[in-house]
Each structure stands twice: as C-alpha cells, then as structure tokens.
C-alpha cells in the first residue's frame, strides 16, 4: 500500500498529460516539417506569448472582466428562475417549456441582434456571456429543489413549517451541490459567450485579438490567445471546485 505516492501521482497526472501532448505536438511539427502558418510549434506559440505579453494580458483582462460580469448576472437570474421553477408549480408549467425552447436556439444567432441593441464592445460581450450561462444554473437549482424527499417535507409541515421555512431549511441547502455543479458548467459557457461576441463585435478582448491575428496570418499569436482562454477557464473552474468542496463537502460523503 503506497497511498501518499498514489495521491501525488494523481495530482501530477494532468501536468504529465499536458507535457506529453506538448512534446508530441512539438515533435510532430519538427518531424513533418509543418509550416508555422498551419500549425506553429509550442515553442513558437510561447515566444509569441512572450513577445506580445502586454497586449495579450490587456485583452485577456477585458475578456475575463466581461465573462465574470456576465456570469454574475447569469447566477442572479439563474438562481431566481431556479427557485421559482423549483418551488412554484405554476412557474414550472409556465416557464420551463419556454426556457427549454430558448435554450435550444444557438446563441451565436442572437449575437447580431444583441449588437443591434447594445452596439459593439463590452455590453454585447457581457450580454452574450449572460445569456449563455444562466440556463444550466436555473435548471440545476430547480432540480435540487424539486427532488426534496416528500417525507422530509412532511416532517417539517407537521411541525407547522411555512413554505419559506421549508425552502430555507431544506430546499436551498439541498440544492447547493446542484448549484455548484452548474456553476462549473456555467463559467465555461460564459467564456464561450464572451469570446463569440468579441470575435463578432468588439475592438478588444481575446476573441478580437484572435480574429485580428488570423487576418494577419500571425498563427502563433492566435494559439497563444487560445491557450490564455484555456488557462482562464481552468483557473475559474478550480476556484468553483474549491468553493464547492468547502461548502458542500457533505454531498461527497467525506470522500
């Protein structure tokens, strides 16, 4: 039994996989003599990142800002809708089909409309991130609330608990794990939304940077942009995963 070593290996695994992929990528580029404008080597991407670092970081900051703002709005609407749908049968019948319909619309199709209303730049990016990310939150919170065991509810009702009591004592704590699971999905969707909007209608942000780099055939810079988005996505995901473990450790039964 070598549990500590096993744990260490588990922690190292993602890095090992990344290192393996990068090595394979680098070797392939050299071996097949792939031109830089088709697929730059990792070294070329890294040097592009070094060269344009201030510009990339500026655009990354813009993208991150928009994503988090849109995400925060999405969380507010998502939680409100989720509580309404999960607790009020009328809201469920009325809103749920509408939401499902709305969610099946490809959001890219909405960006031109949003541009029409909000113009080019930050508001459009925020709105797109918001529209993309509230749905999973609403659905998950509603699911958490709707699947409260009826027996637990009976115990509380026979004590004279009001609907609000039941929501506060049982519904909300119970839906917390569902909520956090949805946050991890929603934050990545928010990034997707921001970057889509930036590629279509923005003069700033990583999405804009990639489009610009593409039009100038600066392929290593495009890849650098993609990696920065990935890094931001992973970082925010980790933040929520840590929060989740801290606040809903009970749902993982101490594992």
């Amino acid at each position, binding site marked *: 039994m070598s549990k500590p070593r096993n744990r260490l290996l588990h922690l190292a695994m993602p890095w090992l996989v990344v290192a393996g992929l990068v090595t394979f990528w680098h070797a392939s580029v050299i071996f097949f003599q792939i031109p830089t404008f088709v697929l730059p080597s990792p070294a070329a991407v890294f040097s592009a990142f070094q060269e344009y670092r201030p510009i990339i970081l500026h655009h990354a900051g813009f993208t991150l800002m928009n994503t988090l703002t849109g995400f925060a709005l999405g969380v507010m609407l998502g939680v409100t809708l989720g509580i309404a749908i999960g607790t009020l049968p009328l809201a469920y019948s009325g809103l749920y089909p509408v939401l499902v319909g709305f969610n099946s619309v490809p959001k890219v199709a909405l960006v031109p409309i949003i541009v029409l209303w909000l113009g080019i730049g930050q508001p459009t990016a925020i709105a797109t991130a918001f529209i993309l990310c509230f749905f999973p939150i609403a659905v998950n919170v509603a699911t958490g609330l709707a699947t409260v*065991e009826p027996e637990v509810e009976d115990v*509380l009702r*026979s*004590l004279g608990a009001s609907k609000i*009591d039941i929501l506060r004592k049982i519904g909300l704590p119970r839906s917390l794990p569902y909520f956090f699971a949805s946050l991890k999905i929603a934050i990545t969707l928010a990034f997707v939304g921001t970057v889509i909007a930036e590629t279509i209608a923005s003069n700033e942000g990583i999405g804009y940077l990639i489009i610009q780099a593409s039009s100038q055939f600066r392929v290593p810079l495009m890849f650098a942009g993609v990696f920065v988005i990935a890094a931001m996505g992973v970082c925010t995901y980790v933040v929520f995963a840590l929060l989740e473990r801290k606040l809903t450790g009970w749902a993982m*039964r101490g594992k």
Partner: protein
Amino acid sequence: MNDFVKLDAVDLRYGGDGGVQALRGADISIAKGEFAAVVGPSGCGKSSLMKLVTGLMPTNGGRITVAGTEVKGPLKIVGMAFQNPTLLPWRRLLKNVMLPLEIVQPHRSRLSRHRAEYVEKARDLLDRVGLKGFENSYPWELSGGMQQRANLCRALIHEPELLMLDEPFGALDYFTREELWGVLQEIWLEKKFTTILVTHDLREAAFLADVIHVMSARPGRIIATHRVDFPRPRTLETTFEPAFVDIVHAIRSQIAQTRSEAKAA
C-alpha cells in the same frame, strides 16, 4: 368520551372518482396519553391514516378531530418519524435533532437566546438513545440503526403532544429493533405523549401499545381493537408469555383472514 384523536367514518380516495379507495368508513378513538398501534395487511392505508391525522392530506369524507378541533390543515404539534430516517445530510447530528426547535413556537423565538439550554436537552436525548459522543457526526457516517435513533430524538425534541411513527424500526435488524422498543417505551413512560404507531410487526405493536387497532385489506377500515394490558415497563421476557403470544396470534389470524377475503373478492 375524552378522545384526543378521533376519526369518524373517514373515507380516502386516491386519484379522483375512478381512483383507488384507500379508506372507507375508518373509525378510531385514541385517548390522551395513550399509545395506539395500527396494524394491517400491506397496502391497507395505514400510512395514509398518518397523513390524514396530521392534516397533511385532506379526507374525502368523514371527520377527524385532534385535541377537540377538526383537522383542516397541517397540525403544528406533531412529531413524526418514518421508516426512512430522513436526516438532513448537511447537518451534524445535534443540529439535525434540533431542527424542530427552529420551526415550532415558542422554541423558535427562544432558540437563539437560550441555545445552551436547548443544546443540553438535545444532548440528553441523544444520550438516552445511546448516541452519546456522536453529536458532531454527519448522519451518513452512522449506521441505519443509529440514524433511526437520532430520527426518534428529532421527533421528540420539541415534546410533541402527538407522536406519529410510521414503521420506524422496519428497516432495522432484529436486535436493534428490540432495543429501540425498550428505549421508546422508557421515554414514553416518562412523558406520556399520545402516540400512534403504524407497523407490520405484530410483536412490536403488542410490546409497545396500550391498544392495537387492526385494519382490513383495502379499502381500509378498523375490524378489531385489542387492549393490551401487560404491566409496564414491559421487557423482552413479556413477549414470551403465553398471553402475549395469544394476542399476537389472534391479530395474526385476523389479518390473514382479511387478506384472504380481499383475494377472494
């Protein structure tokens, strides 16, 4: 008669007019401080009875009164425990047991200022059911029997006037079950809250109850009422006495009969 709980020709149907008739003309009277058990074949509407008496479900006919007033909505004085312990997994045991205090008046408004006193009470109760030292455990860290003990504490912490138990020991092993009979009897002898126990286990009913009501197969009604007069506190030795065995035997044949009648019909 000074009945604390009274059912008068109660009907219950599930699913509208063409639905299943769960109860038809059920009559039960339970005196204040009495320990009543309700037994019957499975599917006879025993659990529905619990929901009706506590006002969680409306009747389709007849009248239910508790403490002199007709039941129209959920009562506020009830402690309940089901076969499934239904403890909240995000609360430690002590906080689980104290949950009713956060709901029921006057404890609700007193809780924050008199927390120490209530914590003391919850600890005492956990101690009585043999859970001393587990106050800070999460329910899922405990065995089913231990969870059920805590569930009993939660049903009793606010000193309800009416305790409703629906197969509370049904999922437990034989020995734990018998041990908890003793624990429940001990607490009941001390506080004398009116109790309605729904169970499949006839020995359990005879061990704990003052009166056993036997229900027919669906649509359920009361077909017999047995007084159980063994002196208290009863012990497991009591369950081997001929008189005890006779009662269990008599109820058993009544249930067997109503089952075969239902099958024949």
